[in-house]
């Protein structure tokens, strides 16, 4: 699992194709699995992920829904309770807010509220992130909010391998799993070099000794690019890909920082109350006395994402910001 996600390679599958292959595998492996969401069928999926699947599997298993996020996410929960294994696609994270009630008040809480009588084996996939000039109602990174919620698991595949392999263990999980796909990754190609991956642990994508750069999903590429620049400046950065945003692989985070003594968290969410804040707090709780510098955070500007390209880029955490933060930490 060492592919930098930003390197398209001829003959390798794209992130989009990897997810499609994963869905196809899941449909083949278990007849309880079905895909449901807005325009997943005839249109081929808002981002082309499910293109062709309707022809292969039919409208029962590749099920177009009306624009009724609350209804079809809730229906996914009901179907999961009744023994099916739904994969629900929500086009974009901003629209998922219309179904937040179902996700938070039902999916995430049924097991607990029922004293363990109920399980909700549901997978919800959605696109997240900015970078395509889609402005404030299509571009936010709200996965950190979902990572706040007990009762669900939150995944953020950053590599083609993870895009290809995370779905199976997500479906096998008896509890709800949310998978966040960063919109800028769909066209990225890379090799799919493992048959299986877990959905518990973070992964070191680049080894280093001087500072740990922590990213996930869309920010992994930013962290890797920064590490490359830092290497040219004589700073050896380790890049940790969180992969799983809930539950966090705290041991991996702490283990890496214990070696490097410095950390920079790269998060496309807003800084206030962010996942980056949570990670910084955990590092402080566990390895405060081993830190040689304050934990740095590189997050999105605290603005609704703007449309204009130059403003959007200015709002997003970029490799230069990460390099600067790492240099501050290294001192």
């Amino acid at each position: 699992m060492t592919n930098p996600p930003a390197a398209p390679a001829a003959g390798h599958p794209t992130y989009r194709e990897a997810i499609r292959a994963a869905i196809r595998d899941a449909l083949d492996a278990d007849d309880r699995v079905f895909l449901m969401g807005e325009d997943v069928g005839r249109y081929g999926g808002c981002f082309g992920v499910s293109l062709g699947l309707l022809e292969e599997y039919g409208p029962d298993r590749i099920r177009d829904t009306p624009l009724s996020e609350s209804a079809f996410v809730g229906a996914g929960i009901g179907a999961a309770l009744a023994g099916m294994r739904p994969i629900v696609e929500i086009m974009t994270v901003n629209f998922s807010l219309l179904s937040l009630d179902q996700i938070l008040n039902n999916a995430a809480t049924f097991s607990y509220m029922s004293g363990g009588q109920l399980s909700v084996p549901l997978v919800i996939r959605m696109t997240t992130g900015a970078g395509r000039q889609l402005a404030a109602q299509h571009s936010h990174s709200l996965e950190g909010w979902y990572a706040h919620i007990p009762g669900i698991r939150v995944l953020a595949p950053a590599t083609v391998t993870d895009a290809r392999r995370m779905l199976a263990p997500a479906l096998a999980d008896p509890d709800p799993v949310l998978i966040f796909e960063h919109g800028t990754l769909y066209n990225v190609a890379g090799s799919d070099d493992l048959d299986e991956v877990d959905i518990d642990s973070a992964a070191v994508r680049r080894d280093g000794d001087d500072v740990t750069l922590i990213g996930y999903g869309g920010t992994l590429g930013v962290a890797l690019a920064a590490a490359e620049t830092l290497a040219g400046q004589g700073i050896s950065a380790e890049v940790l890909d969180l992969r799983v945003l809930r539950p966090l692989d705290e041991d991996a985070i702490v283990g890496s920082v214990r070696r490097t003594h410095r950390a920079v968290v790269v998060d496309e969410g807003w800084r206030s109350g962010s996942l980056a804040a949570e990670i910084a707090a955990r590092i402080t709780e566990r390895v405060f006395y081993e830190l040689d510098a304050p934990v740095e955070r590189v997050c999105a500007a605290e603005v609704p994402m703007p449309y204009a390209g130059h403003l959007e880029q200015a709002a997003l955490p970029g490799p230069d910001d990460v390099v600067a933060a790492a240099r501050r930490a290294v001192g």
Partner: protein
Amino acid sequence: MNARGRDLFASMLRIRRFEERCVELYSARKIRGFMHLYIGEEAVAAGVFDALGADDNVVSTYREHGHALARGVPMTAVLAEMYGKATGCSRGRGGSMHLFDVSRRFYGGNAIVGGGLPIAVGLALADRMRGADRVTACFFGDGAVAEGEFHECLNLAALWRLPVLFCCENNRYAMGTALHRAQAQTDLALRAASYGMVAWPVDGMDVSAVAAAAHRARAQVAATGEPCFLELRTYRFRAHSMYDSDRYRDAAEIDRWKQRDPIDTYAAELLGSGELTEQDRTELEASVGREIDAAVGAAESAPREPVSDLTRFVLTEPEVPS
């Protein structure tokens, strides 16, 4: 020549030619992000805005170039916004999907399907509470009818007797999903009527019919203070957005609808009745072309919002320098 017919025709033509230019500008990467075209649906904007007063409120969707232009938002401000320039009507922060012009009571530009309906209810509620007699026109697509907001808002507007003119642009598709594949009851006016409001379907390809219905509906909302619902049956000739390869409808269907092109049919009607001459038409084309050229020129040379202003307008500023 009949001024009203000419105005309706000119309004449609202006929207059509503007968007045709936008396609070129999009291909030239001057405009980015999602861009949704209104081509084929111009009779709806031309007809409805003909009936609205300057003091009425308007709530729109992401397919709103036509609404904004018909409302009188300057073309230069609309195009500059699509360029992401500082002179854009949302100062480059909104883009094609989020055009705002509060001076013209144009309240966006909403890209969450159904998201504008509650806003319209609230605008109308405020007017009711403060005794203003304006009407709030709320545009949304047939797809929005499946959202909870639709039902919640029609109920509230009817229950509280609010002056909202609901304008459902039924272009038969929500992205790739045909109306009958998404909705159990495809008679949308009937569904609105079930909330206890006056609702009727209108031929959205016929600008005279739209204008007549809109005038009647607006007058009724103004007179009764109660909501009214228009199901404007129309069709988009182009794909959902610039990213859509339009594989879900067949070419014959699109061609059939193009036979009813609202601009061509209205032109033929006006020419036939003598309300419009070929010379009028040529002159209109030329003046629209000049307006578009000027807007493109202005957008090209307009300044970008400085990056140092990135965080401006997140919260209200005490004083906005103009």
